[in-house]
């Protein structure tokens, strides 16, 4: 299998939901091109392979590695470092690898609080209040499970990344186009973009691709799509629905807002923008229709979770990255490790 001369392909999931893998399979018959042009050597969700198999591979022997998911625990970091060593082209694939994604919203609370929510709240059937132990001795020997970090990080805060491919998940058409480009580049028919580029996405914003009618925006209150019947042709933000389109990179054909669901910003910040939420807050706040501080406060009361709304999939990649208590816990842990 290794002697067929084809370039090697790997895909890995760290702290992720599996949606990125589904998106890759959603490229339909193009997946056959992947198989025809690549030797798939490691892809835990699709085939059986062990970490020791990867460890045995020569360095730089994997041509293309799509890495999805954030760095949440020591296993994620270990495999990120391993795949970086073994891969020529390492792509941060999907929102979690690019900017932390949804898992990074736990950067608002401490690790302890996250574990409590997962194991000790009323919705969990755990009468003995058991928690996963990092080390455990069973008759067969000593068991170790990965250590969970306080701060969730995007892939590029763990290892250097060659390309970023945003999206939650990246659109299948974009994946197919990128795969095609890499295949062409391997044959010498195309050149790869500059290292560090965002690939499989546009230069503009989601609003640019959205065909809803836009007028001068004046927002007097925020609401949600389940609370009323939005106008199907009018800009969602103008209707008081918090839509992240104005700050989000295009490339998704504005699928969500066109279907009546506000953009969550999964394609991340546009060219030149460093902090997604900063740009979005700037855009949204400026169109609030009031000059009275008290009324502005009253309108803003209708956004119950600002960080969750403005950094839906971007918190770990933002300037502040995590909340102060999370950082404090992280630094305390680093001291004791």
């Amino acid at each position, binding site marked *: 299998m290794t002697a067929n001369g084809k370039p090697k392909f790997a895909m890995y999931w760290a702290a992720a939901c599996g949606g990125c893998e589904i998106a890759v399979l959603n490229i339909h018959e193009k997946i056959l091109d992947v198989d025809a042009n690549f030797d798939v050597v490691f892809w835990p969700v699709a085939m059986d392979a062990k970490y020791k198999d990867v460890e045995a591979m020569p360095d730089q022997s994997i041509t293309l590695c799509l890495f999805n998911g954030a760095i949440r625990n020591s296993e994620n970091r270990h495999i990120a470092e391993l795949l970086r060593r073994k891969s020529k082209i390492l792509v941060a694939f999907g929102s979690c690898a690019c900017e932390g994604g949804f898992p990074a919203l736990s950067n*608002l609370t401490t690790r302890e609080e996250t574990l409590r929510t997962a194991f000790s709240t009323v919705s969990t059937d755990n009468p003995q209040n058991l928690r996963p132990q990092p080390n455990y001795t069973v008759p067969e020997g000593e068991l170790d499970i990965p250590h969970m970090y306080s701060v969730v990080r995007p892939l590029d805060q763990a290892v250097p990344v060659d390309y*970023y491919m945003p999206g939650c998940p990246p*659109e299948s*058409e*974009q994946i*197919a*186009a*990128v795969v*095609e*480009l890499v295949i062409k580049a391997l044959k010498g028919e195309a050149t790869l*973009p*500059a*290292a*560090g*580029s*965002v*690939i*499989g*996405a*546009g*230069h503009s914003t989601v609003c640019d691709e959205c065909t809803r009618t836009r007028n001068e925006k004046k927002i007097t209150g925020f609401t949600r799509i389940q609370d009323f019947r939005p106008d199907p042709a009018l800009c969602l933000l103008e209707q008081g629905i918090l839509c992240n389109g104005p700050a989000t*990179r295009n*490339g998704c054909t504005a699928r969500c807002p066109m279907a009546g669901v506000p953009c969550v910003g999964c394609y991340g910040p546009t*060219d030149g*923008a*460093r*902090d997604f*939420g*900063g*740009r979005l*807050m*700037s855009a*949204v*706040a*400026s169109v*609030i229709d*009031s*000059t009275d*501080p008290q009324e*502005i*406060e009253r309108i*803003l009361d209708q*956004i119950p*979770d*600002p*960080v969750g709304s*403005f950094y839906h999939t971007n918190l770990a990649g*933002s*300037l*502040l*990255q995590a*909340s*102060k*208590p*999370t*950082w404090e816990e*992280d*630094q305390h842990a680093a001291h004791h490790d």
Partner: protein
Amino acid sequence: MTEAFEPVIIGFTCNWCSYRAADLAGTARVKYAPNVRLIRLMCSGRLDPTFVLKALASGADGVMITGCHPGECHYLEQNYKAMRRYHLLKRMLAQMGVEPGRVKLVWASAAEGVRLAGEITKLVEEVRALGPLNWPTAGVAAALPAKPAALEVPA
């Protein structure tokens, strides 16, 4: 061994009023705390919340945003936009665990040099009482990684 904590405050000023107020305070030799580093913008409406986040993430202990009094903006109503952004930003920062007292919005006309100097000294003392912010990303955030422009691959 340990030096006394001197807060670092980044002050954003508007070209038409608060920067001139600071200038006036200087020419009138009004004394105020030397902890503030002023950055001149053309208007408080130019203030992207990212600037404040970058200042805090890069090691500042506090940020002062200043602009023309409401109704007196050189660009008609951009200071109202600054005000709305400030109110939203404060909520976001509170959720991130940043004490609300670290970021302050102050209106100052070109004639209010003494008042601006007083506000600066006041904020410095308030932030001194809060202690250092020491955001752990300092140094990383300052060197903004410039990602090359996106490659549009026709789907």
